[in-house]
């Protein structure tokens, strides 16, 4: 069982790289959705099959794998955008940065004061790598929708870490977190639509009118 956990986390890290390098928005959304689905499978594997983890599994599957991608697809259909433009530092530099962050995550994770049974697992490197990828996407991309995807990946990274701490998070809080994310994406979709109506594009570089 433990081996599959490592494989899933590895797949999540590989998906990070894939998202950093692709420019097709539909592919990005599908990749983030599959990352969410993979992560949803982790709680029962790590903590055993019980009510709490099964509820978490279904909730995460429905919201991260179903509703949020649907909202995002609707958003890009409404603004009729299908491709991202060249990021601020270029795709190759983004990929290299992402790889450096992942490498740094692996190196750093070995020096953290972790519990003994967490020491050689892939949880912490996967967390740091996914957080870094989300952050990179937020900073370097120009289209609003990719920034939203960066935020989602950031949240995925936090989710990975929270799996280690299942007992601390009661169902109420987990449900609240998922719902919050859902509503946040919903609102972001609406705002993106308004941006598109205002500027006929969702290139956030247009949003620079407010100055001192």
């Amino acid at each position, binding site marked *: 069982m433990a081996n599959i956990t490592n494989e899933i986390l590895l797949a999540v890290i590989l998906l990070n*790289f894939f998202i950093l390098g692709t420019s097709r928005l539909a592919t990005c959304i599908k990749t983030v959705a599959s990352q969410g689905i993979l992560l949803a499978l982790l709680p029962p594997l790590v903590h055993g099959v019980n009510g709490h983890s099964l509820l978490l599994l279904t909730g995460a599957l429905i919201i991260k794998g179903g509703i949020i991608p649907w909202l995002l697809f609707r958003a890009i259909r409404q603004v009729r955008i299908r491709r991202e433009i060249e990021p601020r530092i270029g795709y190759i530099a983004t990929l290299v940065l992402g*790889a450096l962050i992942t490498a740094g995550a*692996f190196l750093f994770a070995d020096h953290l004061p972790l519990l003994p049974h967490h020491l050689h697992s892939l949880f912490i490197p996967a967390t740091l790598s996914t957080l870094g990828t989300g952050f990179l996407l937020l900073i370097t991309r120009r289209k609003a929708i990719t920034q939203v995807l960066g935020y989602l990946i950031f949240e995925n990274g936090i989710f990975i870490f929270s799996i280690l701490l299942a007992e601390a998070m009661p169902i109420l809080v987990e449900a609240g977190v998922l719902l919050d994310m859902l509503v946040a994406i919903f609102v972001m979709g609406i705002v993106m639509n308004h941006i598109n109506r205002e500027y006929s594009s969702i290139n956030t570089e247009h949003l620079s009118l407010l100055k001192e």
Partner: protein
Amino acid sequence: MFSSIFFHILLLVGLSPLLPGIIAKTKALVAGRKGPPMLQLYHDIWKLFRKGMVISKTTTWVFRAGPIVGFAVPVLAGLLIPFGTMDALLSFTGDLILFVYLLGLARFFTVLAALDTGSSFEGMGAAREATFSVLVEPTVFVAFLVLARTSGSLTLDTMLSAGAKGELFHGPATMSLILISFCLFIVLLVENCRIPFDDPDTHLELTMIHEVMVLDHSGPDLGLILYGAAMKLLLSAALVLDLILPSAGNVVVDCLAFVVGLLLLAVCIGLVESAMARLRLIRIPQLLVGTTLLSFFALILILR
């Protein structure tokens, strides 16, 4: 001993023209056509060897040297690689460097021969080919690093026998080896100018990369080039297969398995070619850098 040498050379020299034929047949069948016969390349090479040559007056000895080097180098490099469980004929510590640079030498001479003609099309193709090779070389080195680390030795023979030991399926380095085999497959596609990096069937000069470099060769020279390219394909496929194919214990079964594996890999390449289109030129460096990073990632996994 002698039989293994004999079999090694026979496989390298005899089987290699079959592979491009299988690829072309697969592509044709997937596209709904009948396609050329699988032994077509044998006939083509035989025909070319009996033809006369036309040599441009602007070329020098480099132009003649290119195909000869292009034929000799794969033979030499093939001596360094094990085929399945059949050991390499020549092996010493650090021969992986020799391997990589032998292939580099062949490429160098092909590029030079293209530049030697003085035609702009060849120069353009040569530049592109050189760029792709530069971008893919780190992947090869990192892949070899990973293999060196898992096997603990610096001879290609031991490194590549990881597959024979079945390490791909169980053992501490499974994920890394899977990633590395994937990267080496991409390297195969790049080095042998297959889709999605280069279209071997295109007849538009502006879209050719490898094809345009050999545009001016004719007769026996062209035959040597085609033969050399087929052998290079076999070598790259052997690299990938060595990692994947587990050993069955019996020598005969292993040899047969290796041959069948080569043919299946050729079918795979044909399927990949049918499924994709050639990438836009600006995307190819991105993909190659991505592959390099993937191999680095495999290295990190193994260093933990």
